[in-house]
């Protein structure tokens, strides 16, 4: 789960990271009053969980409260990369002398947090990694010990931060790490961390990605989720603990197990089709869960054929079959369905589906081949 810029900055501020004065607004008139209160020039920033806001015109400078109101009206009406803008952040405008990158994330290979700093802030750190890899400095953090001052000092020294900013920078590093740790984040990032004209450090933009598995410890963060921004299918999948990722193809896939689901998608593609989604119903799924999964797939208008691939273990094929039948009954799908059921209670599962208008396959390869063929036939109609 990602936090918005304004939410991330609030979390940072709680840990002692300095952020610009500002406020969040859902309406243009709110934006205007925030600008009034701040005085001087302000920046109006679209709050959407997607990169490239600036290029899309979602971040604009206003010289007066009236202009702020006007810009807020425009931005609140936008969609950026398909996402509606429902909130804007109105911050005091700051003219930076320098822009720094500072982030902390989990390093998979080292199995520990890593703090990353660069004197080249303000742009995507992955871009810096490509163009100027020597400008990126890392310290690996002992997960039990946490970030130590000497490590923050090393970062300050390695990015050649002027010495008068070290004390404040170290405080910000410790604060950022604390924010990362206390929220169970997988990424906490300040980009840019700027040096202002009056020689202060300020977190101008911020981003936190929470570990979904850690959310049970943070009901206060879960409340920050803006469900309006979720597609209905994604929301339903989340509620039923189904792993669902929408894709652009036409073959809907329902599989038990993430690896098998990916393999099914891959095979579909190898056979000349395009998967419409990734969907893992998990282990031991109930008929209800299966039915929800199938409904989610069928709700995608691109889907021309559904491919069900289940290797029964804890998951029982008969239960899957019941779920399929229930979804068929309620949704009355017009697209063809190919099923391949193997393993626990396979015979009973096949028997249940025998009367339904269903194509069965015995191998994964065959199932994929038939699904692709069917999708092409549907296309021709």
């Amino acid at each position, binding site marked *: 789960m990602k936090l918005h810029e304004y939410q991330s900055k609030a979390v940072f501020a709680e840990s002692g990271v300095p952020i610009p004065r500002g406020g969040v607004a859902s309406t243009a008139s709110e934006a205007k009053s925030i600008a009034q209160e701040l005085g001087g020039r302000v920046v109006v920033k679209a709050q959407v969980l997607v990169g490239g806001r600036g290029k899309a015109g979602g971040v604009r400078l206003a010289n007066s409260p009236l202009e702020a109101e006007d810009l807020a009206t425009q931005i609140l009406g936008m969609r950026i990369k398909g996402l509606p803008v429902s909130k804007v952040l109105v911050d005091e405008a700051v003219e930076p002398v320098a822009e720094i990158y500072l982030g902390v994330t989990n390093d998979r290979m080292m199995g520990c947090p890593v703090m990353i700093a660069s004197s080249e802030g303000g742009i995507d750190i992955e871009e810096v990694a490509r163009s100027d890899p020597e400008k990126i400095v890392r310290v690996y953090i002992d997960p039990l010990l946490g970030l130590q001052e000497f490590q923050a000092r090393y970062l300050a020294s390695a990015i050649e931060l002027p010495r008068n900013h070290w004390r404040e920078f170290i405080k910000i590093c410790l604060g950022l790490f604390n924010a990362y740790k206390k929220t169970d984040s*997988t990424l906490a990032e300040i980009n840019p961390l700027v040096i202002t004209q009056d020689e202060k450090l300020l977190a101008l933009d911020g981003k936190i990605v929470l570990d979904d598995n850690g959310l049970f410890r943070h009901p206060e963060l879960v409340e920050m989720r803006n469900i309006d921004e979720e597609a209905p299918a994604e929301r339903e999948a989340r509620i039923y603990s189904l792993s669902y990722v929408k894709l652009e193809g036409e073959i809907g896939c329902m599989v038990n197990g993430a690896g*098998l689901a990916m393999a099914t998608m891959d095979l579909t593609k190898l056979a000349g089709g395009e998967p419409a989604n990734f969907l893992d119903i998990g282990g031991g799924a109930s008929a209800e869960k299966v039915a929800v999964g199938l409904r989610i797939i069928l709700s995608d208008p691109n889907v021309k054929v559904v491919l069900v691939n289940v290797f029964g*273990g*804890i998951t029982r094929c008969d239960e899957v079959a019941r779920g399929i039948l229930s979804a068929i009954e309620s949704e009355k799908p017009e697209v063809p369905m190919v099923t391949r059921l193997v393993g626990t209670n396979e015979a009973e599962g096949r028997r249940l589906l025998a009367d339904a208008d269903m194509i069965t396959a015995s191998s994964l390869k065959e199932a994929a081949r038939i699904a692709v063929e069917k999708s092409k036939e549907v296309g021709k109609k």
Partner: protein
Amino acid sequence: MSILINKNTRLLVQGITGQEGFFHSAHMMNYGTKVVAGVTPGKGGEWVLDGKIPVFDTVKSAVEVTGANCSVIFVPARFAADAILEAADAELPLIVCITEGIPVSDMMRVQSFVQQKGVRLIGPNCPGLQTPGACNVGIIPGQIAEAGSVGVVSRSGTLTYEVLYALKLNGMGVSTCVGIGGDPIKGTNFIDVLGLFEDDPQTESIVLIGEIGGTDEERAAEFIRDRMTKQTVGFIAGKSAPPGKRMGHAGAIVEGGEGLAVDKIKALTSAGVKVVDHPEQIPEMIF
């Protein structure tokens, strides 16, 4: 010989009175696994599974009384870190954590402690291990593999079953199957298991099942190139997965240009691994 588990494995089940722990304990016992004890805090003194298995309050006492030398963990995610730490503190040499959904922050702490203690953790978020005909630890179905000479190591669950089944249909047996799990931070990686297979006389060839995310497969390729003499066949799931999206497993995500299936396939191929296009092809590649 197999690796990691065999007929002498004395298994402790943490979370034995929970729904999952109970269900799979019965399955493991049916398989012939020596389940010797269960742990559920607050239920010490009870006997479960037809009165055959004693339940203890703590791992320490379970180990003292029953001589368990392996633990499998079925407790819910929010208690799993504590359960692994408890098993590691009791110095059980092999700990298998089935639980899915453990926070990464917990796993980083746990990992550091487990390494200090010098014990081996498999998982979390894994199906466990199976040495066909001898011992089954975890949730891999019992009837889909026969004893034999193929070592299987995998980041996936059901996909592994698919492979085991394909091997069986082709008359091929398995020495040990190890599911290392789909989390980004895990106790045991490909290279650890590959090293064990290389040293295991029973294992003649190896199947490695990887997926997108991280660089474990790239490191495995390096290890295979430098250190392995046995034939390895590979499959990587997720060629069609888009970047930036998590494909079910917490670890299955392409981020910052890292973790692409195509890079993994390239690395493995250039290390001499035959990488197949779909799991059912695997048996025909093994000779």
